[in-house]
């Protein structure tokens, strides 16, 4: 960047954190080879994990990590929406509610009493929700965590004014393309790959284990077909199927309804 160029001419980026582990926004800092170049192209206006300086909104792009799980967060996400021209939800928490959405099937008061000595001090909502449950979201980038190169693709596309190229097909395509032998066939290992969106690079099968669904459901998953295989070929119980579906993206449809159905049928 030209040093004399006024900073306001660069697009302004804001990075927000809600209920989460920090891992998705950390992916920006994991871009060791691209970080300094990125900071030259974009004005990092609000990113508390990385810098103390806070520039006032409005912002051109807002990246939102985390689910909405407290009354305060509900207010903050509405403000973030007002402050950002384009709002992108990044990661499983922001796009599905994340692992903490397991509370959505439980009694939150009981959860609070289990973990906290003084549960009355805890301000929390009954459900942990994706960002889109509260405000309009321009784009959702899946993953637990997001793939940092997909994150660069989203930022690049938004800067260029085009739609991000993020595939919504299943992990199996990615896996086959990488020439990895199918773990279901070769290792008799249950794998959520057939119903999970691609994006991680088929990591788990590369490491000889089954996918556990970090990127959430693919565009049109045939969940019952896969789960029938789990039951018939691997002798998996319905309770275990429910656990598998209720992972890091368990509250996202159609995983949610499928897990509810299996839970109901395991009781009858």
């Amino acid at each position, binding site marked *: 960047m030209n040093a004399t160029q006024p900073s306001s001419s660069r697009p302004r980026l804001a990075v927000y*954190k*809600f*209920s*989460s*582990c*920090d*891992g*998705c926004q*950390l992916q920006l*800092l*994991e871009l*060791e*080879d691209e970080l*300094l170049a990125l*900071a030259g192209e974009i004005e*990092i206006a609000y990113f*508390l*994990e*990385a*810098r*103390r*300086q*806070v520039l006032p909104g409005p912002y051109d792009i807002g990246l939102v990590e985390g689910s909405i*799980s*407290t009354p*305060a*967060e509900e207010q903050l996400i509405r403000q973030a929406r007002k402050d950002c021209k384009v709002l992108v939800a990044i990661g499983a928490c922001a796009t599905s509610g*994340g*692992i*903490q959405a*397991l*509370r959505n099937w*439980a009694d*939150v008061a009981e*959860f*609070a009493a*289990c*973990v*906290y*000595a*003084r549960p009355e*001090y*805890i*301000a929390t909502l009954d459900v*942990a929700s994706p960002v889109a449950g509260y405000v309009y979201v321009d784009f959702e980038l899946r993953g*637990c*965590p997001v793939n940092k190169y997909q994150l660069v693709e989203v930022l690049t596309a938004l800067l260029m004014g085009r739609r991000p190229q993020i595939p919504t097909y299943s992990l199996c395509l990615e896996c086959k393309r990488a020439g990895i032998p199918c773990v279901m066939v070769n290792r008799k290992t249950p794998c959520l790959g057939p119903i999970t969106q691609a994006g*991680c690079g088929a*990591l*788990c099968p*590369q*490491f*000889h*284990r089954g996918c*556990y669904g*970090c990127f959430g459901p693919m565009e049109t998953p045939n969940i019952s077909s896969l789960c029938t295989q789990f039951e018939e070929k691997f002798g998996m119980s319905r309770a*275990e199927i429910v*656990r598998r579906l209720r*992972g*890091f993206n368990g509250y996202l449809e159609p995983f949610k309804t499928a897990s509810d159905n299996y839970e109901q049928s395991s009781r009858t």
Partner: protein
Amino acid sequence: MSKAAEPNQRVIEVHNLARVEGEGALYLRMQGRDVAEVKFSIFEPPRFFEAFLRGRDCREVPDITARICGICPVAYQMSSCHAMEMAFGIKIEKTIRDLRRLLYCGEWIESHVLHMFLLHLPDFLNYESAISMASEHRDLVAGALQLKKAGNEIVRILGGREVHPINACIGGFHRVPTRSELEPVAEMLAGCRDFLVQALRFLATLKYPDLEMNYDFIALRHPEEVALNEGYLTTSRGLEFSITQFSDQIEEIHQRHSNALHARLKNGAIYLVGPLARVNINWDLYPQPIKELAREIGFQIPCHNQFKSILARGFETLYALDHSLELISRYERPERPATPFQPRAGIGHGCTEAPRGILYHRYEIDSEGLVRSATIVPPTAQNQPQIEADLAAYAPKLLDMPEDEMTRQCEFLIRNYDPCISCSAHFLRLKIERD
């Protein structure tokens, strides 16, 4: 931001601490030259991990607890794997043990370098961030990014990805690497060593605020090696206990003034965990070349100045780098990636040295291998009372400064701890105070 509440009274408040992992705040009230009240608050939303872990399969626990922290997922995976292995009586093979040390070294390197150069150093050099710092110290920032990348590369090769790696499991790994997969990492690491040594020489020349505290350090200690995954808990005042006695020796107290649960030793003493505690407790086990470098640059043990934790992190990073090279050079691929096991009912404890200090897990497992109860005590929660004690000792020295500088100095002190707030919040019994 600072404001006058009443005559003679000054209040320093920072609502959103920057360059820390997670959401935290600071509240400090001075009465004249005395500290009347100090609160380091964690307002990170509760996520209830210990509650929803109940009923999950033991094999899922390392992957789930990793999600407590995106910066130190390996620590969570290691503490939970060790706890399960204790519960099930699983013995780990030597090569697998070495690979776990290597994985942990990768996390120490990436986490420490991120904190030292991108989050902490800007305080010493008076920049608001490493992004601003890079304009005048580009080589330093670029070198640090390469070193961080090398640490991450260890995690990526052994774990599949840097954040929430997927390869660690109870008994070992899903897949173990070949020698040739590890060798390029050794090359990357070796290429960063000179930078790190030079950077340590430079860091030693920084101006360190004068704040000597009478810390009681706690760290894992192992008779033969710098402890990462295994050892007994040792305090600098001479107490030693097994990790299974964690909750016999350490209690959590509800403090009225802060409404936060504070970890303390049963004798009432607060304590410090993390890099400074570890180098103080385990320095005799450090290799000679590292001790010589420390002597050359004037870093002395015992060291009771937390501002120098940046040097402690640096020496730990150097240890992790050299140790990684050693582990890679002697690596022979084990025949099986993990010890097979059958879950059984039992209780297991795991305590490992996360980048920020001891991370304790305890699980009770039922006969079907499902979790009955889970307890997780992360390092930043343990350090919280010490952070407040440091602030109370430091603030009176700052009274003659302009108020925004005083605020900045208090934030600087909190960043000495590399506080990992996402980790801590899920179990802290704290009142969420909002303005």
